[in-house]
């Protein structure tokens, strides 16, 4: 883009040759004839703020804060349900049934399920935040506000994904606070714990974005979470160690990407895992790269949003 020559005293976004809008208190209404005698701007003026990265930051922060405001405003629908569901899981699976199951990988059962329940909440919320927000913007057509702006596709994607990540992490923290009332776990490796939380939220926020792009109705945004995400999460080792499974189910479980996330997160929190940490991180990074590239390609081609 051309470099901007900002005129002294000229606000950003104001073009040389273009008169500033008048103050409403002091703007005489112009008669039509007068309007027609105005000269158009003579020179090709630079168009936008001189600092492209500053503009990108403003655009990103606008999108991010819009997304955070969206789920914060309706916290009863977005934050609270996960806290209630997790409490029920802890009461039923932890306290009532857990004592009969006995220890799992050397840990009390209620402690063992904490990482899976936290990550399940992160996955569900990161996904559903993006899928519902982006689909609503398509459905009500206010996605056009963004499409007509100079925001590049990667900023649009980053804005929506960061909103999903923010909700995923917020709910994850809430669930951990709930867990602290029922268990006495301590964080084994804080860096791994935080990194896995973040990467998982990013990955499923991207998944939610792709779902929203292809969705043609509100039914379409609930199909994937119900028929794909929930089964994969439950079969991803939230409630059990895959060592307990007979073959071929144990090998088949290795094809479930959520298994790697839950186990890596379990390592971060409790220090135990069915999967080597390096493999878990590699697989998560690979999925993020693939889904990220695919999301950008969808935006570039305008799939689902441009005619």
């Amino acid at each position, binding site marked *: 883009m*051309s470099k901007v020559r900002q005129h002294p005293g000229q606000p950003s976004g104001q073009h040389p*040759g273009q008169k500033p809008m008048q103050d409403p208190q002091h703007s005489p*209404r112009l008669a039509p004839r007068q309007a027609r005698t105005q000269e158009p701007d003579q020179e090709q003026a630079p168009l936008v703020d001189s600092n492209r990265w500053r503009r990108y930051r403003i655009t990103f922060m606008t999108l991010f804060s819009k997304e955070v405001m969206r789920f914060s405003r309706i916290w009863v629908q977005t934050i609270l349900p996960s806290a209630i569901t997790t409490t029920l899981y802890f009461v039923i699976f932890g306290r009532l049934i857990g004592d009969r199951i006995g220890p799992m990988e050397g840990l009390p059962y209620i402690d063992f399920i904490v990482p899976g329940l936290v990550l399940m909440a992160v996955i569900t919320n990161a996904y559903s935040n993006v899928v519902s927000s982006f689909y609503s913007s398509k459905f009500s057509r206010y996605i056009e506000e963004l499409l007509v702006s100079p925001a590049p596709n990667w900023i649009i994607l980053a804005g929506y994904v960061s909103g999903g990540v923010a909700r995923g992490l917020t709910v994850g923290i809430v669930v951990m606070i709930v867990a602290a009332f029922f268990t006495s776990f301590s964080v084994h490796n804080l860096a791994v714990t935080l990194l896995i939380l973040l990467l998982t939220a990013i990955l499923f926020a991207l998944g939610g974005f792709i779902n929203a792009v292809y969705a043609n109705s509100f039914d379409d945004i609930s199909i994937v979470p119900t028929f794909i995400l929930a089964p994969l999460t439950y079969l991803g080792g939230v409630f059990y160690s895959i060592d307990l499974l007979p073959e071929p189910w144990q090998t088949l479980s290795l094809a479930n990407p959520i298994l790697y996330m839950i186990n890596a997160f379990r390592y971060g929190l409790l220090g135990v895992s069915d999967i080597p940490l390096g493999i878990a991180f590699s697989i998560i990074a690979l999925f993020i790269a693939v889904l990220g590239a695919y999301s950008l390609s969808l935006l570039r081609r305008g799939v689902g949003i441009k005619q």
Partner: protein
Amino acid sequence: MTALSVHRLNKTYRNGLQALQDVDLKVEAGDFFALLGPNGAGKSTLIGIVTSLVRKSGGRVEVFGHDLDRDPQAVRANIGVVPQEFNFNLFLPVIEVVLNQAGYFGVPRKEARERAEMLLRKLDLWDRRETEMRLLSGGMKRRLMIARALVHRPRLVILDEPTAGVDIEIRRAMWGFMREINAGGTTIILTTHYLEEAESLCRHLAIIDQGQIQARSNIASLLGELHAETFVLNLKGRLGELPEIGGFMLERIDESTLEVQIDREHTLNGLFEALSRNGIEVLSLRNKQNRLEKLFLDRVDAGRGREAGR
């Protein structure tokens, strides 16, 4: 300088509909330009392509010298668009809608707040700034779309039927505002079905139909092409026998209404003199049809006739 240049623009939708066929169009910077056409003519497709909402099938679009294919960000930064249909998040307050749009264009928050206040005050929406969009009337939503389109101070504003469904008082106020924006140097492209709106506001126009530009002209010279105008006269008293007046075609509508067609060789003064001589007094008169409307229909019909003859 050219604000918008469109060269051999084509658009064929997936269902095979060819919405635009080799459209060429130029709009000069500072112009107030009307893009007219019947429903389905291709206006919204053309606007959609220029504003990046519709993908073109072929051709070139330049906005202030920036090519849409090579530098789409610069093109979009120059344009503000008021779409035909409402496209808001209905649960956001008015002020948020404007501030978010400014943010998408990279306008710093503090500056965006100042601009939003100025625009909302001008468009008489400041008192409603905390009201959720869904609670606004249709006219308020239309005005808000204008505020939203202007908050990043675009050089080219595209108004796609901005006054549709708006009452006459608000429409007049919006006209004044648009003139003011144009007087400040902003190029405006207007599509409208109210042809008196185009006649009142615009300096140039293009008529598009069936995906092709049928006419492009200066409005004043186009109106000069009218060969005859028809007026409806309200008479004082009852009209007796229809008089014969040379040079004018008279038609009786009812006992107190007369329709008169006047060609360019004759004047209204001559008509009134002739009517007075015949004892007919006129209380008021009006154009039977908007002047631009007649030309518009003539051009569209002519274009369709040419198409049928091929």
